[in-house]
């Protein structure tokens, strides 16, 4: 702590209180994902009478003898008509300890893009398999995505356990297969739970029909899993959103008085993407590489002694350094070196293909940079066998749902972290310069999967004999 800190003790973190946990679901069609989500909402009393009433009416109309909980997650008219889920939907439920934001991702093969989207912010992935089928290609794909996106926790819900007569043997085999797969993919933390979403076994209420299982229920796990974001423990990163330079002191009746003397106030507004910062600490301004110390951490609720990942604040610096939107304030210890060439893993999210030579925009932190695709060094073959890792095949272009290795030349130097260490400041999106569409999700640096072949040896312009391993489209 700064010994002669000029700031008073300020409102900082709460002594307790409810925290927020972000989840994403993943699974194949017919694994019962909608039913599981419906069950979680229903059993946590998150479904109110009129919604339930509606679901019961629709269920009856469809000739069902009880409420189909999957209907709780129906969103758009087309989804109701076609009985499918089209897009990521967000659901909310809470217990006294935690509030959960659940990104409900459709399970179709062609919708890997949705799983990537939902996983990008998830603390936990809830992955489903049908107990009758066990670990399938889809499961391997989803787990590979979880690994790529560095989601800290994955739970495997072995659903429809009632349809295999609550068999311990079946569950153990699936759990063993899964553990092996998770290890080979470098997934950080996993847990398996035998569940029947339709019957309610082990979702919220512990089942007496699985006496051989002594772990937590799905909700029990979600309530107790470590919710300290990885970002809090890593180095300080603060993309500057805008420079605060009020012309005169605003005497706002609702806020603390700003420390403005004769119009002389210059602060940098942003959100800590990772780490912590205290008053008095030295920082480096990227990509300019100038140094300064934090003079104050201002908020409308009063000044703070320190701030942590996730907080939106205004920082004032002691030196008169040049800082503008797009810059990143970072810890002086091992800041990311600004680069002009960026190697990354890219999930392609658009119908139009990515080809070498394409001109795109790279949006990272609060900056946007022009870029040219220099090379596509391979596409991840996700139809791999258990016990192996996915390998990279050489290709000429990336298509929708492909995950590829891409090298980009950047118009201006970008201080980008390795995604493996920094889940936010190692991430970027690729944007179409012409119409603004979000084309791809990028993760800078290496991948958890070691390429079989040396990717640089199979340069993008060579013919692609390895096309056979590519996703069927």
């Amino acid at each position, binding site marked *: *702590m700064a010994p002669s800190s000029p700031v008073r003790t300020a409102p900082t*973190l709460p002594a307790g*209180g409810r*925290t*927020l946990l972000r989840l994403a679901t993943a699974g194949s069609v017919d694994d019962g994902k909608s039913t599981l989500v419906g069950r979680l909402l229903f059993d946590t009393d998150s479904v*109110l009478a*009129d919604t339930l009433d*509606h679901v019961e009416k629709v269920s009856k109309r469809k000739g069902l003898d009880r409420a189909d909980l999957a209907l709780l997650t*129906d*969103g*758009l008219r087309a989804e109701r008509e076609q009985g499918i889920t*089209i*897009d990521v*939907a*967000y*659901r*909310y439920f*809470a217990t006294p300890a*935690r*509030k959960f*934001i659940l990104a409900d991702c459709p399970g179709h093969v062609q919708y890997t*893009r*949705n799983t*990537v989207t939902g996983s990008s*912010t998830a603390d936990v992935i809830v992955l489903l398999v049908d107990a009758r089928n066990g670990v399938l290609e889809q499961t391997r794909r989803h787990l590979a995505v979880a690994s790529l996106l560095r989601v800290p926790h994955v739970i495997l819900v072995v659903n429809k356990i009632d349809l295999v007569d609550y068999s311990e043997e079946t569950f153990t085999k699936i759990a063993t297969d899964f553990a092996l797969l998770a290890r080979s993919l470098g997934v950080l933390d996993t847990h398996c739970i035998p569940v029947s979403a339709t019957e309610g076994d082990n979702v919220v209420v512990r089942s007496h029909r699985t006496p051989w299982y002594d772990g937590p229920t799905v909700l029990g796990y979600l309530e107790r899993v470590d919710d*300290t*974001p990885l970002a809090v*423990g890593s180095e300080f990163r603060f993309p500057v*959103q805008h420079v*605060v330079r*009020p012309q005169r*002191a*605003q005497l*706002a*009746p*609702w*806020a603390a008085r*700003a420390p403005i003397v004769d119009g002389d*106030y210059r602060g940098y507004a*942003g*959100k800590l993407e990772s780490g912590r910062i*205290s008053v*008095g600490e030295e920082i480096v301004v990227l990509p300019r590489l100038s140094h300064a110390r934090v003079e104050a951490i*201002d*908020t*409308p609720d009063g000044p703070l*002694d320190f701030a942590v990942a*996730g*907080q*939106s604040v*205004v920082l004032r610096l002691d030196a008169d350094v040049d800082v503008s939107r797009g810059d990143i304030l970072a810890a002086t210890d091992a800041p990311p070196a600004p680069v002009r060439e960026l190697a990354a893993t890219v999930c392609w999210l658009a119908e139009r293909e990515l080809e070498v030579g394409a001109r795109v*925009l790279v*949006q990272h932190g*609060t900056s946007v940079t022009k870029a040219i695709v220099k090379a596509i060094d391979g596409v991840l073959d996700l139809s791999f066998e258990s016990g192996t890792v996915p390998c990279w095949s050489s290709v000429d272009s990336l298509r929708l749902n492909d995950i590829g290795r891409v090298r980009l030349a950047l118009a201006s130097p970008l201080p980008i972290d390795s995604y493996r260490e920094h*889940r936010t400041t190692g991430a*970027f999106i690729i*944007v179409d310069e012409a*119409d*603004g569409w*979000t084309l791809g999700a990028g993760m800078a640096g290496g991948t958890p999967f070691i390429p079989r072949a040396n990717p640089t040896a199979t340069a993008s312009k060579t013919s692609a004999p390895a096309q056979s391993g590519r996703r069927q489209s």
Partner: protein
Amino acid sequence: MTAPATLRPLSELQALESESIHIIREVAATFAKPVMLFSGGKDSVVMLHLAAKAFWPAPIPFGLLHVDTAHNFPEVLEFRDDAVAFYGAQLQVASVQDYIDDGRLRDRPDGTRNPLQTVPLLDTIQHGKHDAVFGGGRRDEERARAKERVFSMRDEFGQWEPRNQRPELWSLYNGRHLPGEHVRVFPLSNWTELDVWDYIESEKIALPTIYYAHQREVVQRDGMWIAITPVTPALDGEKVELRSVRYRTVGDMSCTAAVLSNASTVHDVISEVGLSQLTERGATRADDRLSEAAMEDRKREGYF
């Protein structure tokens, strides 16, 4: 120098507040002429409060817009103007009544004016060259909204295309658009009704009085409590009763119903919301009962 920082994550409300402030700042920094919808309803008041916090100690760098149906509760209009002054903001009003008076819009047979807001809204966006429009919508409100992005693209006709939305990853919001298109931004996307009330309590945010229990003449109609007002007179055979009621949502008088309640403080309301067996729209919005996809249809046409 080591910080006394802990590894404890932020509380739910801190995390939500911080996320919303981040979104609002991104919009101000990347769009030419944003505007924030403001009705005086609780969600829009919370959004305004967050905007004020986002830019403090500077003023809010964009204006507010109210699409006035002329069917507003007088208490809400009075509050609206007080709140605008309190936060030092600028308000512009688009009047549905003007459109009706000069024939550009016609009242519907059912008297509901909510759907009529769309045309004045789109006109104001177009004439004001607004490229970003903040709305107080939350994803927990309604089925179609659960699928909406934080940055939600609208085409030249103000339409939403739910099947063709941009993926939204990490906290990288992409607001690039073609001329004529605009972006609807929902900073409260991840808030629930209860979060909004908890935040109102913790930040001591003032609301229109009709959110709290008060005596009012009401009739029971179609299972809902409708206040007796100039636009919603009692119908033949209806029994007018004086009851203690409050409003969970504040919309057009012609289609917003009250709920029976004795909750006279924020704290009482939070207990009540926590226990309520009906969703706020199901309990109080006649317009969402029109059909299963009523909200989806209105959103596609450019409604907020």
